């Protein structure tokens, strides 16, 4: 099963569906009955991306055309905007590879933007060397008619630092997936996420971390807000292989469901084959706290504003963890806009 193979061969039978355990909440096979035509080249002027002005370098991959191979050399510090832009109703796939060599630093500002009923796939190969840092901030503002699958394979060297925050408003169906091979050796990993979904939008944040060596640390905090008939999916798996002792892994997923017809499916999984590990996970799904809401209203804050304030604060905990200040401001404004726009 492969989304790329399906797009390339124009064969819907290749799409993953609900019979595949890892895709049972994000069924593409049942959704897409007919393979789309290959996308035509992007036409018209490209609008400014969500991170415009924040990075000296910008790479645009539009309707699968173009690609990126970025190599950050030792001691280099770079900022890169990587934009996956989709247009129309066709199918397209693209690849990018990002390598941050030992001691290098990269802020990767990745965005998904689209208009139309496309089926798009993005594949990323990411490697982070010893003593190198990569902060990846993903902002996915897909079309409500589009289907997007993004899959990143991340390879860390001992002593590397990879921190990621994925922010999404979903799509007709959307999956943003990150796989990390964690070597231990004091490499540091953070995999955060936020999904804010309304209408009939769907977003799936899936992460798989495999700890393969001693002394590795992983933290994860994902938060979601779903309303209307939207559906959020969180699948977080952390595997601690035999011998990967002194691993410290912490995972949290918390969602607010703001309507009766919205849905959140969560599967936090810790698979531990080592003896000496510190692992914790927490998962909550609920509504806004009525007492806090009344308290805010008693102080004069109108109900809609009080809801927005409390919801923004709920999500804010994730935003506060973004290291890059400029990206953090963009993220905060994006959250405020999404929450205000949907009342």
């Amino acid at each position, binding site marked *: 099963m492969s989304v790329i193979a399906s797009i390339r061969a124009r064969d819907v039978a290749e799409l993953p569906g609900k019979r595949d355990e890892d895709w049972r909440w994000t069924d593409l096979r049942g959704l897409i009955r007919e393979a789309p035509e290959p996308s035509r080249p992007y036409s018209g002027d490209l609008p400014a991306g969500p991170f415009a002005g924040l990075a000296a370098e910008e790479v645009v991959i539009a309707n699968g055309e173009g690609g990126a191979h970025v190599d950050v050399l030792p001691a280099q510090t770079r900022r890169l905007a990587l934009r996956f832009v989709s247009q129309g109703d066709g199918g397209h796939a693209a690849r990018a590879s990002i390598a941050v060599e030992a001691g290098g630093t990269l802020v990767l500002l990745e965005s998904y933007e689209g208009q139309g009923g496309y089926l798009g796939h993005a594949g990323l190969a990411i490697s982070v060397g010893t003593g190198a840092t990569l902060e990846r901030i993903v902002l996915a503002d897909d079309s409500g008619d589009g289907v997007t699958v993004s899959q990143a394979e991340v390879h860390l060297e001992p002593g590397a630092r990879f921190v990621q925050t994925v922010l999404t408003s979903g799509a007709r169906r959307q999956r943003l997936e990150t796989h990390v091979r964690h070597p231990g050796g004091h490499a540091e990993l953070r995999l955060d996420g936020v999904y804010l979904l309304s209408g009939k939008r769907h977003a799936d944040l899936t992460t798989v971390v495999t700890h393969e060596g001693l002394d590795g640390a992983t933290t994860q905090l994902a938060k979601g807000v779903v309303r209307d008939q939207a559906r959020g999916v969180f699948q977080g798996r952390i595997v601690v292989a035999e011998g990967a002792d002194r691993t410290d892994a912490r995972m949290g997923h918390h969602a607010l469901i703001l309507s009766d017809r919205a849905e959140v499916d969560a599967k936090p999984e810790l698979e531990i084959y080592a003896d000496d590990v510190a692992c914790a996970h927490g998962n909550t799904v609920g509504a806004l*706290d*009525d*007492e*806090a809401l*009344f*308290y*805010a*209203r*008693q*102080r*004069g*804050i*109108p*109900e809609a*504003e*009080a809801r927005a*304030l*409390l919801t*923004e*604060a*709920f999500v*804010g*905990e994730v935003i506060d963890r973004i290291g890059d200040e400029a990206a953090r401001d963009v993220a905060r404004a994006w959250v405020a806009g999404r929450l205000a726009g949907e009342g």
Partner: protein
Amino acid sequence: MLSVSNLHAAVDGKEILKGLSLEVPAGEVHAIMGPNGAGKSTLSYVLTGRDGYEVTEGSATLDGEDLLSLEPEERAAKGVFLSFQYPLEIPGVPALTFVRTALNAQRRARGEPEVTAPEFLKLVRARAGELKIDFDMLKRALNVGFSGGEKKRMEILQMAILQPRFLILDETDSGLDIDALKIVADGVNALRGPDRGMLVITHYQRLLDYIKPDRVHVLAGGRIVASGGPELALQLEREGYDRYARAA
């Protein structure tokens, strides 16, 4: 000022207030005392419009304006302030942000201009100093990890900034040691004035040594069963609520 007449209210279909009547004129502080389960907290929630408290009969007005048909935030903008027995923790919202949002929402509702950030900070610094609140604490999420005394001081700070016309203090002394109680009482007393009314709800007489009431009412069985001067509080302290509980 506050006029409550024959108020009946139910929670989950069970009648808690059973014909409560009360007049608090402007400039006066009235205490409501009563045994546990008498309906003290219910009264404060009914007056402030909390969901789940259903008024089945009677009226409550502030300066002749009906309160019961208004949303909680509309009552707040009219100047009704409830100091909670257990102030809520608001994770992720700095105290400063919360109070400024509340102040400006109230001002908007009254058709007044919003306060600017510098004006607001000046106001908060002055009031926080009076209440011995460390300004840095106001940058933290409201009430999260605060002690009982700190939470109550935050309530008083909000009063001092929002300048409500009518205050309801629900068991404000609970969880306070004597030093914190004095600070809180000083803050409340500073707000006493000819245009402002207060309802002090308390189980114990102790608070009334520091916030001296003009009138004391005994609430039992969902109604006011006795009213008198400050000496009534002392009598209750000596004799307990038994005779009133029986009368109810």
